[in-house]
């Protein structure tokens, strides 16, 4: 039974990471109906942004706990700025194009970012060890133990998710985001500059992905140019599982996916080999019985 709770706890750690990235997919989809396939790469570049600051700019003898917030913020800013640039250069010119055009562009941006990092960042192809900015050690709850850095990952993720929730539900910009998601034309007539709202949405998703970049780096060093692919795929699955476009759904989807993978690893025969297959089985089952995902609403007709 202890082991069950241990796996549950490991699943929550993994799920928190998935959820942080999934939020970017779901917010962007909610507002422009675009699956931003480059989001995994925005996460990956964020991890390299944090690494760059640590490796090239911070003094070697800086205490890890001082460097941590700097690296974290650097990752977030890198991803946030990159998300804004991608939106401006790649997606905005296609705002009124048929849906397929931005979708294909997204795949192109994803490959372009991977290749740029691979070609131009030293050692990005074999992997760079990410700095370990958190003390080693374990927290024990009953028989369950998690490393400090895993606990930090979960706590920080939850704090960021709550901050996002507050922002979206209770700030003027958050209200404008929701209004734009529901009806962009009417939102415009409320004086909302929806271009600015859309870029803000990309930036918010980028900030969270950047934070996830540093967290994944610390938990699962090294980072290489391909880490965005699997993380992006899992997070996208989580977003669809929760109901794409729905913020709470993305968080729920992330945790469900993480926990399913962890429990499958432990309890399904050959589970560690089949856990990914298992995650997709869950996705398929949910979509069969609830095509809109766990918390998704039926697709709104646009006036």
């Amino acid at each position, binding site marked *: 039974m202890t082991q069950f709770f241990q796996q549950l706890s490991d699943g929550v750690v993994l799920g928190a990471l998935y959820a942080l990235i999934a939020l970017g997919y779901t917010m962007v989809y909610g507002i422009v109906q675009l699956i931003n396939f480059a989001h995994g790469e925005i996460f990956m570049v964020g991890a390299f942004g944090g690494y760059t600051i640590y490796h090239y700019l911070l003094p070697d003898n800086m205490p890890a706990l001082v460097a941590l917030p700097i690296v974290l913020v650097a990752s977030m800013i890198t991803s946030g700025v990159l998300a804004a640039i991608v939106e401006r250069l790649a997606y905005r010119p296609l705002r009124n194009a048929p849906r397929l055009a931005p979708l294909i562009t997204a795949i192109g941006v994803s490959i372009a970012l991977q290749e740029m990092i691979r070609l131009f960042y030293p050692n990005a192809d074999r992997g760079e060890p990410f700095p370990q900015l958190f003390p080693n050690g374990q927290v024990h709850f009953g028989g369950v133990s998690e490393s400090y850095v895993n606990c930090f990952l979960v706590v920080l993720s939850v704090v960021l998710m709550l901050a996002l929730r507050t922002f979206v539900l209770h700030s*003027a910009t958050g209200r404008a985001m*929701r209004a734009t998601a*529901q*009806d962009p034309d009417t939102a*415009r007539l*409320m*004086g909302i500059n929806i271009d600015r709202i859309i870029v803000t949405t990309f930036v918010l998703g980028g900030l969270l992905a950047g934070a996830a970049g540093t967290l994944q780096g610390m938990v699962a060093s090294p980072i290489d140019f391909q880490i965005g692919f699997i993380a992006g795929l899992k997070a996208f699955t989580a977003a669809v599982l929760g109901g794409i476009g729905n913020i709470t759904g993305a968080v729920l989807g992330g945790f469900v996916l993480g926990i399913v993978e962890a429990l499958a690893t432990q309890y399904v025969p050959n589970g560690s080999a089949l856990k990914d297959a298992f995650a997709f089985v869950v996705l398929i089952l949910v979509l069969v019985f609830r095509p809109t995902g766990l918390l998704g609403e039926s697709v709104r007709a646009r*006036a």
Partner: protein
Amino acid sequence: MPLLQATGVTKQFGGLRALSNVDLTVEEGEIVGVIGPNGAGKTTFFNCLTGMETRTSGEILFRGAPLPTRPDRVTVAGVARTFQNIRLFHNMTVLENVLVGTHPRSRAGVLSAIGRGPRYKREERKAESTSRELLSFVKLDGLRGELAKSLSYGDQRRLEIARALATDPGLLLLDEPTAGMNASETAGAIALVKAIRARGIGIVLIEHDMRFVFGLCDRVAVLVHGEKMVEGSPAQVQSDERVISAYLGRPAE
């Protein structure tokens, strides 16, 4: 200086001329009615004013300055509207709908929202008190926490008006404000429009309910086939032969 001065507004959809050379002037605090048969171009005219559609030609001055062509800037300049088929943010509460309307008048940016600075708090308090005041103005103060989609039809119309007023407009465009209303609701709407005028806001309204139009408006313009056929006081328009024939369905030519 007139509040709104539109001259020669023309809208061409491919080979179809939906509006041709429409002029309309609205003075401060005036209520102007726009009537005409279905398909006469009334809503297109509103869309051209608010930038939802790009006009083919024509000039629109608001308070003497050219009105922008982007919808959000039109609203910021001081022109607000409602829709014939109500377009609320259905999954937001009544209060939130009105708060969204205050958006162009809030000067707090994203950064101060994240930092929750004092300026942000002040702006939010101001937006909330404005919104509450508007909701009691349209008599919806008891329903603040309800989702917009759960409101009755008449309440939804009034909420849409409150939301438009939250943008602090100098001119309000109402697209069929009494459509689907019963007699007592219509009477309420008349009172509401008058009360809005009393706040110093000019109004242009599209209506099919003739008693409503002629009872309320200072001036009435008649659109037929995208052209302004007649403009004048309710009495002048009511007695115009061409208007009568247009409304009886005879060809206007």
